[in-house]
């Protein structure tokens, strides 16, 4: 056709695809994608993430009302599931697959192939030794000895015999070892893909659920009894193991000797009983931080704890209208705790109470109360009472830990100039306006548990171990070729040359070649007889290793 310019060859759609594929699977692209991945992971550590810290995200929206929606629109609060982060790692993995598939094929061939022919001139390699002997040894004797040594070093060996030319005889041995290096490399990269698939697919079959249990109470493993529940995409609630878990006792050890760490918790122990519903089989066990309990296909973790004061409200006639162990949420390390009591029925109006619980109450200079020790030394409960509409009748779900005061009238505490109700354990007081009485009967502890099921995490672990194993072999097993060549001249002088070539990083190639060469001389019982010799650096250091 005689085109006008070399560059003007048009690419068809197939050509473009092939070009793009080649670009994507090139090492340079893979490297850029890796660096991009590192960069893209940064924002997720600067801004709270919904997956790890949902409350932090809510807080961020409150603190930065202008910036937060903009950040949200670029998925800054869901970085690790965002479109842009996902596309980087998916492209990276496509590039990776495009790289390891041809490499695996190539390696499979190499595993079956014989080492390559011995190069014509060995002295051009960096790792090179030669000696000239005056003993009448046949080339076959020397290559025999070399083969034996190399095979002992687990080299794959092949021998070449050259017919004598102008009075010289030549024979050589070509050897290669370290195929495991490439195997390890492929295992490493393939296992990374394995991790990605296991995490991506496997996450869909598991679930996590949280539940608060007060001492003496129990929880039945059904969807409805969780406080919060996050199922995977393919999770079927029918698969929940049918057992119940009761918290018999929750014990906390506090530091009491070390004055500088007084009151620091040093041990949490949850004594629990599990009971299988069908068989009725019960088991006692303990759950600690770092020591989860395996029940069926789920693990149960101890996440948090606090106090649950038992509070009873009676109407003016003395009839109980409310009694419960109310979990209070800890606010500081001395367990000053905040809780909410809602009494929808039984009194003249609906009543809500916001309570502060101090395990060891003390008064600050400002007059405010605080807790100075996390154990129950001098427990005190204060209650601010509200009356009005609790907002429960509309049928909207409401948090049990929050009181919507917009439709309520405050009766005690705050700006009402009526003192808050204060109760020690066992005490009872009148509610304002003769509505009835409230009492603090006892104080129990609660523990919050996380129930977790991830059927594929064993796979993730397996692939991780393969990643580590592959990495070790691919970085520390040297892949090298070694050649031993011997030639006999017409006057009977025998030359032995040994050369090595590293394939990949191999700092110990030179010593390996020297070592082999010397062992060969020794094996030939010729160590004392070299006429000339010693390691000479090659005159032109242009080994294959250098050409890139």
């Amino acid at each position, binding site marked *: 056709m005689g085109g006008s310019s070399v560059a003007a060859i048009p690419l068809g759609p197939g050509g473009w695809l092939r070009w793009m594929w080649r670009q994507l699977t090139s090492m340079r692209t893979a*490297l850029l994608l890796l660096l991009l991945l590192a960069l893209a992971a940064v924002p997720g550590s600067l801004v709270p993430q919904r997956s790890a810290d949902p409350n932090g995200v809510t807080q961020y929206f409150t603190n930065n009302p202008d910036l937060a929606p903009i950040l949200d629109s670029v998925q800054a609060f869901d970085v690790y599931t965002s479109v842009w982060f996902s596309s980087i790692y998916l492209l990276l993995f496509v590039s990776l697959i495009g790289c390891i598939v041809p490499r695996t094929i190539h390696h499979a061939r190499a595993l079956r192939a014989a080492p390559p022919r011995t190069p014509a001139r060995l002295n051009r390699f960096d790792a090179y030794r030669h000696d000239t002997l005056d003993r009448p040894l046949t080339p076959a004797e020397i290559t025999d000895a070399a083969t034996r040594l190399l095979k002992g070093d687990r080299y794959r060996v092949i021998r070449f015999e050259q017919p004598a030319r102008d009075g010289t005889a030549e024979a050589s041995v070509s050897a290669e070892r370290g195929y495991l290096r490439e195997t390890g490399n492929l295992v490493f990269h393939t296992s990374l893909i394995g991790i990605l698939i296991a995490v991506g697919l496997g996450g869909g079959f598991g679930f996590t659920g949280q539940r608060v249990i007060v001492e003496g109470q129990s929880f039945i493993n059904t969807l409805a009894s969780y406080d919060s529940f996050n199922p995977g995409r393919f999770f079927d609630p029918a698969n929940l193991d049918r057992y119940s878990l009761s918290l018999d006792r929750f014990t906390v050890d506090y530091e009491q000797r*070390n004055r500088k760490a007084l009151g620091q918790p040093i041990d949490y122990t949850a004594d629990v009983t599990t009971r299988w519903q069908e068989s009725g089989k019960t088991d006692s066990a303990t759950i600690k931080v770092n020591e989860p309990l395996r029940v069926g296909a789920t693990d149960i973790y101890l996440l948090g704890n606090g106090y649950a004061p038992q509070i009873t409200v009676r109407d003016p006639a003395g009839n109980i209208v409310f009694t419960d162990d109310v979990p209070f949420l800890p606010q500081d390390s001395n367990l000053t705790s905040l809780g909410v009591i809602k009494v929808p029925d039984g009194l003249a109006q609906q009543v809500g109470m916001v309570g502060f619980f101090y395990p060891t109450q003390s008064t600050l200079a400002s007059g405010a109360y605080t807790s100075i020790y996390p154990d129950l030394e001098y427990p005190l409960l204060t209650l601010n009472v509200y009356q009005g509409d609790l907002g429960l009748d509309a049928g909207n779900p409401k948090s049990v830990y929050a009181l919507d005061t917009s439709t309520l009238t405050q009766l005690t505490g705050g700006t009402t100039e009526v003192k808050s109700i204060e109760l020690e354990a066992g005490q009872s007081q009148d509610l304002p306006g003769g509505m009835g009485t409230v009492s603090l009967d006892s104080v129990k502890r609660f523990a919050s548990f996380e129930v977790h099921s991830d059927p594929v*995490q064993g796979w*993730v672990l397996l692939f991780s171990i393969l990643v*580590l194993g592959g990495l*070790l072999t691919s970085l520390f097993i040297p892949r090298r070729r070694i050649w031993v060549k011997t030639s006999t001249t017409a006057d009977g002088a025998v030359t032995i040359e040994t050369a090595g070539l590293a394939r990949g990083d191999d700092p110990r190639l030179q010593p390996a070649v020297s070592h082999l060469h010397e062992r060969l001389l020794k094996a030939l019982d010729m160590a004392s007889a070299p006429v000339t010799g010693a390691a000479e650096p090659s005159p032109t250091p242009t080994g294959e290793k250098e050409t890139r």
Partner: protein
Amino acid sequence: MTADLDSLSVLALYSAMAVYALAFVGFAIDLARRSSPPLVDQATSHSATLNMSARVGTAPTLTLPPQTTTETGATKPPARSTAARVATSLTVLAWTLQIGATALRGVVAERLPWANMYEFSLTGTVVIVGVYLGLLTRIDLRYLGTFITGLTLVLLGISTVQYYVPVSPLPPALQSYWLVIHVFVAIVATGFFAIGFALSFIQLASARQRETTAIKRLATLLQSLPTAEKLENLAYRVNIIGFILWTFTLIAGAIWAERAWGRYWGWDTKEVWTFIIWVLYAGYIHARATAGWRGSRSAWLGIVGFAAVLFNFGIVNVFFTGLHSYSGL
């Protein structure tokens, strides 16, 4: 009793820091000697060495005739330097003192001494210096002495002033043998990365010096060091050991997270940065096999990687909220 032992530990640490400072001076003198113009003949070279030894206060009898002012008429400075030798000995002494300080802290606390930032810095620098001294028995890395002792001094200075906390018991979340494995391996990895960083840094300086010879003394100094290519290979070997250890740290951390928090990975801030560091060093390793990225570019990646390690340790632990916040800091 415990308070006494704890103050003894602090005293040992201050002594170690003082000796590190002397070692730093010794290594700095060694570098200064390397950067002085080449000596012309054996006699001047010899007397210069004697002067040097007198200045750092060693017995003149220790001074051996410099070996390199040999056949070629002394175009490079002597390989054996009194200053470097004294500095190395001082480093070993300071390291021994610091091990004592760290061990005492562990004895007082009745547990391993790496549960908060102060203890972590203490153990971390012990390991960094340990890795350095360990490598020193195989490769002459004395030109990194100023960096290693300087880094150690800065880290110890910051941690004693900012992060010292009285001994306190281990919170339940840290009561696990994974604290031993996960944290210790992370520290050892950091030691290797630190040395890789220093080598890459000199490599860059050395590569640049080839282009410009503006600062003559610097050029002389760099000529006394291995070539950029040698430094690159050395940095690579050190960094891949660090990378393997870091991979292990990542996996061990995930296993521990699964035990403690009920999930093996949750993009906690510390997890994110551990991941970022892993990816950066993976990039560094791949860069060595990428056309156009060998040499200075890969060295930059190694430097960025170590910067991320320092950031992870110094900034993320302290200023970022997350599950890894250390007890009492």
